[in-house]
């Protein structure tokens, strides 16, 4: 079960090269595969130098928003007046996304090394890896690796005799999608309800425990060691000017070969779906793809000729998100699929903002009624109205997340809604 699926794109397996190899999980094995080569380099560099390399590489946050990682690091105070923190966001919970767990379970030491280098760059004294609670098997693997790192002097006090001290703690959640939002994550880490807070204060000013904090996604941090070892120019051989590098794709739904693949950014989405993943089983037509995880706008099977970059997907009217396409074939009931998505967001709303608390639940109820055959045409107008009122009104983007698939579903598959209503 699970990764890896064999495929023929060897040149892009940088981060994922050792997925599936038991050996890679142990410190000894990982070192024999060339692991922990970048950390000594980082220890000899000034924090700002590390940040500069990452800036030059153009690495963008892999958690969905795509914010340039080096730029984010540079927001941290240059002269600490107390501890800084790094939070590694491993609360992977977006429906469709399951890429980070492959990193956690196959190459935990790669993530640890990335965390340490990033911590060095932002002058963090402690790294908290926040893993979603459900990922017990994977947080256990990561925790074992962290303990190994401690025992080998790679974490904790005086790392590799450099005089630099940095702790790493694996911290698991308890079931809340919203803990994947950076301020929600910090609220949860601090022992609270995972409620996002309004910015300012920005995490780089006052984050976890009231101290400057950077929150980075697992995949982002896992890309750091290779960027530092091989250089930013090397990293830029993949992808485009504005979206450089490789990206883990996790593809699910009606596919011949669902799974996680590392692909260069910029590949046409059609190739990802049809070539890499083999298209829909039994030669069925693809009706819709939600390209970046369930919070992105749906594309129809005919709209897949877009470039899989942050900018290319935006141009196509959707978003790269976490590069987690959910593929639906011609037999899919789009209303029910949308209902499932809406129910997810209603279930996961933290309940602070009125629009999100009441609106997501309302959307789900209307969809449920339409699905049961009790809908009216006026319901469709109400849903559009809700799309407007759930966009850009709330503290965090959870409410917006239901709007992207909903609006696109209404626009592109209106016929299905109407036929249920008129039935």
């Amino acid at each position, binding site marked *: 079960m699970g990764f890896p699926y064999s495929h023929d794109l060897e040149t892009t397996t940088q981060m994922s090269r050792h997925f599936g190899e038991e050996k890679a999980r142990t410190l000894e094995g990982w070192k024999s595969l060339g692991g922990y080569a970048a950390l000594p380099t980082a220890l000899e560099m000034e924090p700002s130098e590390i940040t500069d390399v990452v800036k030059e590489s153009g690495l963008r946050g892999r958690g969905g928003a795509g914010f340039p990682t080096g730029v984010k690091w540079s927001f941290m105070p240059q002269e600490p007046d107390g501890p800084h923190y790094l939070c590694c966001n491993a609360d992977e919970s977006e429906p469709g996304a399951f890429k980070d767990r492959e990193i956690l379970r196959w190459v935990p030491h790669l993530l640890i090394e990335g965390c340490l280098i990033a911590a060095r760059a932002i002058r963090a004294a402690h790294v908290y890896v926040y893993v979603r609670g459900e990922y017990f098997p994977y947080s256990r693997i990561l925790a074992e690796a962290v303990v190994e790192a401690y025992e080998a002097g790679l974490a904790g006090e005086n790392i590799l005799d450099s005089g630099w001290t940095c702790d790493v703690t694996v911290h698991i959640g308890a079931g*809340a999608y919203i803990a994947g939002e950076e301020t929600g994550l910090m609220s949860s880490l601090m022992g609270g*309800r995972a409620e996002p*807070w*309004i910015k300012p204060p920005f995490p780089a000013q006052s984050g976890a425990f009231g101290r400057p904090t950077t929150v980075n996604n697992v995949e982002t941090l896992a890309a750091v060691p290779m960027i530092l070892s091989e250089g930013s120019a090397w990293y830029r051989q993949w992808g485009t000017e504005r979206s450089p590098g490789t990206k883990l794709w996790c593809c699910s739904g009606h596919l011949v070969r669902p799974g996680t693949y590392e692909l260069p950014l910029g590949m046409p989405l059609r190739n990802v779906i049809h070539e890499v993943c083999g298209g829909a089983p039994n030669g069925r037509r693809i009706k819709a793809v939600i390209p970046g995880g369930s919070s992105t706008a749906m594309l129809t099977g005919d709209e897949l000729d877009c470039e899989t970059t942050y900018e290319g997907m935006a141009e196509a009217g959707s978003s790269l998100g976490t590069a987690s396409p959910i593929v639906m074939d011609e037999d899919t009931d789009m209303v029910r699929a949308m209902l499932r998505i809406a129910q997810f967001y*209603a*279930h*996961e*709303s*933290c*309940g*602070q*903002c*009125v*629009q999100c*608390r*009441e*609106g*997501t*639940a*309302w959307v789900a*109820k*209307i969809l449920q*009624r339409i699905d049961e055959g009790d809908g*009216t045409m*006026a*319901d469709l107008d*109400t849903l559009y*109205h809700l799309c*407007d*009122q759930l966009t*850009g*009104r*709330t*503290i965090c983007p959870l409410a917006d997340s239901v709007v992207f698939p909903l609006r696109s579903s209404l626009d592109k598959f209106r016929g299905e809604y109407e036929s249920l209503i008129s039935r």
Partner: protein
Amino acid sequence: MSDAPKDITLTIDEAEVTVEAGTTVLQAAERAGIVVPHYCYHPGIPSRPAQCRMCLVEIEGQPKLQPSCVFPAQDGMVVHTESEDARKARQSVIEFLLLNHPLDCPICDAAGQCMLQDYAFETGQLKSRYAEAKVVLGRDRIADDILYFGDRCIICTRCVRFMEDLAGDNALVVAQRGHKAYIDTFPGRDLDHAFRGNIVDVCPVGALVHEDFVFKARAWDMDSAPGICPGCSTGCNIDINVTENQIVRVKPRYNPDVNSYWMCDHGRRLPVVSNRAVRAEAPLIRVDEELEPASWNEALEWTAERLKAGPGTALVSAGESCESLFYLRLLLKDLGIAGGTFRVGSGDEATLPGFPKLKLRAERAPNVAGARLVGFNTAEELPSVSDGATLVALGDSLWDAPSDYGVNAGFFLYAGSHLVPATANATAIFPAALPPEMEGTLINYEGRVQRFHRALRAPGVARPAWMSLSRLLEHRGAGKGALDIRAAFSSMAAVTRGLDELSWDDLGLRGRSLSEAGEPALVADREE
């Protein structure tokens, strides 16, 4: 370097307003007389989660609507609170809040004072598009005197944050999440904080209600008058809500120098309880061993003739107004009686950590400082009365006196509101109004002179004690009676160090500090 914050000027709905740096857009708008509707923001609660999204406004240059409760005003900023987008956003918040809100305004105690009702009316959307069944939560008891109506709750979390930020007791929380969220305590642990009642005041809707107020009065039927809490020497500013000459509710009245927006539950309960007691309603004079009703003129004349200068004892109450105490002092001088004592009940203190100045103070009377100012001292015991001496008792000073107290006095004058066992021994009784039934001043623990207004009619022909005592002096030829409170206050202020620079009008609704520190005393006494 100057630390003084710079002033900034911004434009809100075409009105230009200048405010200090650090002011939020919502506060700046308020300064310009523009109300931005809001729920979760409360000026007295420090945390600002910006979660109700009701105060979203359009700010030029900002891509999205911004919550004005936290967005800092900036120089040159242009704000539109009534733009199409802002109005629509507000309207939709109301629509969302009403989805599962019961239509029980006709039986809701908040109706008429409800921010949801007001704004729903304002946005004018009368028809709900909600075709689903409403979620029903029912109601719950969260303190022995507070009920929670879950269906009405809009999860603004003001109550939760009052308990956390002000009371420092995280005993009230949001349970569950999303559309299933509600407010709750830990099972089996009701709220027992001494300031818990404030959660009812901060609730913008009818979700939290004092049980003793449920179904008691409609907002539009109540009259309200500003008063001072009689519960302790803090002197919290209050609003006294009255229907049919009964106090039905007391709410704190904002005074940044005394109690901010808050008051304790001890004080909140007192005036409502004081509705019930046996009151003196007409002047009584002792004729042929019996106390007989008399007209005021009769009683004053009768008493003025019979009260003789000589040895005597005076006891007063620190719940009486400064003016009443002052005129009693003048009467005592006229009779040649010095001194005079009062007793103060004491109790446990309770603090509100988020506003440390506000405390339920151990001294359980509102005018201890005022009584001292006009020359009365505290005593532990009831003073003994020598045979044949004069006894003068003012206010609630005899509540626990034995039933034969004062029976040996030569003349026993009681000017008070309640009839208790010992008052049966009085020679004359002047029925007195209680503070909610009159106007006057009280001086709190830190020397703040505060006015209270009349909320109720006094029973029968009861009058403020200052009025009857000043007229008694006039009848004795020892001065001129004060006809109104303004005259009474200025007569007192003219001869009282500390008050001499204050006027009735200056006191306003927020009071003033005594103008001189140090041991206060009557100027008149000092001169002698």
